[in-house]
């Protein structure tokens, strides 16, 4: 006889994985639209406007175009690495979402079974997320190497150096968060921040904001966005590691880039802004919104961060390569170590 509850667990797990994968594959559609709209409005333009109302169908038109474009593999490229590089960039970006909690519990109507709103509640969540996010660099560097083009190679090398440098600062800035919740488990990190916005890690004064800003700076370097997008510096490298890519392979790189942006926004919310916890516990919440209450707060915070990244992109110019390295090694890492020390003393002697 088959165990029914085991079967149900497996089904729920498969459904959750499927839903997360579908959402992640679908994400670039609204995000490219949003990015172009934000770009347009910041430059006093309108952005895409003609395909569908306010251009909402523009990404779909772009997708169709990319699907039908010729898929060029350069003559002297390393064919195998060239073909596998976009996948190597994409898979880690998706794998990160295994550990990310987007909510606590949700009761499925009709079968009355609680479903946890995360795929896996692993005890080394923080470590897993940082490690897997660091793997994404393989796609970039293989893509740059396999293209057999100087621009792609230089872009790939730059991004390798950049991502490795900032990985250190990124991980160090999270150590304070881990100290706060005494756990590497992402769910526990979120639950330890419950009960009002003054319990969020961001408001652990005076070191909370410092962690947060270091995390944001390192994260924007990690996902190669302005002001740290030296990997695709149009002025000097045409477009960096994906210079030689076209069609669907190029769009896989774009997909992984957008998923990485979402990942970083989600991590910032989980680590510093209390995940799905509302800023103030309301005494009364209507029954209708209750199932979506936590997820709603979570999504709202993530959207704010996504907008912030786009906003910064169209505000700041790009750093020079040596400035980038100076910021990473000479400023961020010493500050990180200092805040870790201060946090340690505060945790032992204060509260």
């Amino acid at each position, binding site marked *: 006889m088959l165990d029914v509850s085991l079967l149900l667990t497996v089904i729920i797990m498969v459904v959750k994985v499927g839903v997360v994968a579908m959402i992640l594959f679908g994400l670039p559609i609204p995000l490219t639209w949003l990015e172009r709209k*934000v770009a347009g409005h910041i430059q006093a*333009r*309108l952005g895409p406007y*003609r395909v569908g109302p306010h251009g909402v169908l523009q990404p779909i038109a772009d997708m169709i175009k990319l699907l039908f474009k010729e898929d060029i593999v350069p003559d002297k490229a390393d064919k195998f690495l060239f073909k596998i590089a976009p996948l190597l960039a994409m898979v880690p970006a998706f794998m990160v979402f295994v550990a990310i909690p987007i909510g606590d519990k949700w009761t499925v109507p009709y079968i009355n079974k609680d479903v946890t709103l995360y795929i896996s509640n692993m005890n080394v969540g923080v470590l897993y997320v940082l490690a897997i996010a660091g793997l994404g660099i393989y796609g970039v560097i293989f893509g740059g190497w396999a293209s057999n083009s100087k621009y792609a190679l230089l872009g790939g090398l730059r991004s390798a150096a950049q991502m490795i440098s900032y990985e250190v600062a990124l991980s160090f800035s999270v150590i304070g968060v881990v100290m706060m919740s005494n756990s590497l488990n992402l769910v526990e990190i979120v639950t330890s921040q419950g009960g009002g916005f003054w319990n969020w890690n961001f408001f652990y004064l005076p070191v909370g904001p410092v962690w947060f800003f270091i995390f944001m700076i390192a994260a924007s370097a990690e996902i190669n966005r302005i002001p740290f997008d030296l990997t695709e510096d149009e002025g000097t490298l045409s477009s960096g590691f994906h210079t030689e890519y076209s069609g669907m392979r190029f769009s896989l790189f774009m997909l992984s880039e957008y998923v990485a942006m979402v990942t970083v926004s989600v991590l910032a919310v989980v680590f510093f802004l209390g995940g799905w916890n509302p800023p103030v516990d309301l005494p009364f919440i209507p029954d209708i919104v209750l199932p979506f209450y936590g997820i709603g707060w979570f999504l709202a915070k993530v959207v704010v961060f996504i907008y912030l990244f786009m906003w910064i992109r169209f505000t700041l110019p790009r750093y020079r390569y040596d400035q980038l390295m100076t910021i990473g090694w000479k400023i961020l890492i010493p500050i990180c170590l200092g805040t870790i020390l201060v946090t340690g003393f505060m945790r032992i002697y204060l509260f």
Partner: protein
Amino acid sequence: MSRTGEKIKNFIKKTVFVDFIKGLHVTLGYNLSKSITIRYPDEEKWIPYRRFRGRHTLNRTPEGRELCVACELCAKSCPTNCITVIPMEDDTGRGIADRVAKVWKVDLVRCLFCGYCEDACPTRALRLGRDYELACTDLACTGMEMQELLMPQSIPETISGGVVAKARFIRDGEKLTVEADLGKTRKMRW
């Protein structure tokens, strides 16, 4: 003392991201401000000022008589020789005098819209109007004959222009037109 004070001030400015926040403030202001895009041709169309020099038109008197007396001054003053005028005699009251144009033709490919012909015209018959959508699919449509030029101007002289009007984009086979609704206009903010 003052130099160290300056240094400390700059250091504090750097640590609390003053310049960064100023930059973000500027871009947020633009993000929330209204766009300056004219949504041509789908929804809007630019109505030029009166001084605009577009396609030629030949005017009539209020009674409907042709103002052109075929004096050929426009053709003489034209730097590119794109205007052809052939006069003829007509006393049926078609024109304001006995002399009217038999042929009045302009080759818009050669015309450079300098406006000398308009200046030379002694009866103010010729006017460079405000039609600027002159693109077409074959060369035949670039030569404008008298009958077309004698049609009333699409934007009458009474409208001072310099506004954006609501418009309708009409696709009729090969022919594309943008029809402006002169009643509904908005000022441009430059």
